[in-house]
């Protein structure tokens, strides 16, 4: 009986040691397998914008500057439309006509 118990204890101890050894062996293998791939280094960090007033707009988003001749024509067109609107108001003064909308690109 004593011998049987001794044998049982030794087997349980041996099994525990074997389990520990197996666990240690498998942990090291899995940690090696989960090593993250090396990421490329970020050479220029983006500027922090949390407290910045100005958010830089990418150049591609900026509207193209119209030629000066076109701009001058638009100004003249705006003046003519505004005069026509003012003429309408002077002819028949109402609050609605005073602030009537025109098709001028300067106000739309």
């Amino acid at each position, binding site marked *: 009986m004593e011998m049987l118990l001794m044998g049982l204890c030794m087997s349980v101890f041996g099994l525990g040691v074997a389990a520990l050894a197996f666990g240690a062996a498998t942990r090291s293998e899995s940690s090696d397998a989960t090593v993250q791939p090396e990421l490329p280094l970020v050479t220029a960090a983006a500027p922090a914008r949390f407290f910045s007033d100005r958010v830089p707009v990418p150049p591609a988003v900026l509207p193209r500057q119209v030629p000066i001749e076109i701009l001058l024509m638009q100004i*003249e067109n705006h*003046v003519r439309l505004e005069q026509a609107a*003012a003429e309408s108001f002077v002819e028949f003064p109402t609050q609605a006509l005073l*602030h009537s909308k025109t098709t001028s690109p300067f106000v739309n």
Partner: protein
Amino acid sequence: MTHDLLNGLPSAEIEGILALGTRLIVPAGTSLFRLGDTADRLFLTERGRIRLTLPMQVRGKEEEILVEERSAGQTVGWSALIPPYRFTLTAHAPLESEVIALPREALREHFSAHPAVGYKIALNLAIVMGHRLQLFQTMWVREMQRAVEVRSA
């Protein structure tokens, strides 16, 4: 040709006024007067068009911006009758135009001799000036309204 400045005058009186003036051909693209010039003549437009402009900075360059355009029958340059007798706009013709230039001194002498004509012309001038004032105060309020909307948006 009916001129806004001579409205309501008998034809004999109109002839008398026009006889004081000189007909001028303004070639296309040339100036009739410039901002700040001494205003010693009033102009009645006979044909063509006269552009009245003011200088404005556009992209760092001075450009003449249209303020008003006058055509046949309309008066240009009433600064000639109002102190300090300086033009407050530049006038030029985009196409060949014809005007009658009425010298201030000749008009003053004529009005002294014919007060009823002077009175009628003064009333017509008040109509021309009053109309322009109404137009520009309306345009000013419209621009102000937009400025307020942009500022409070």
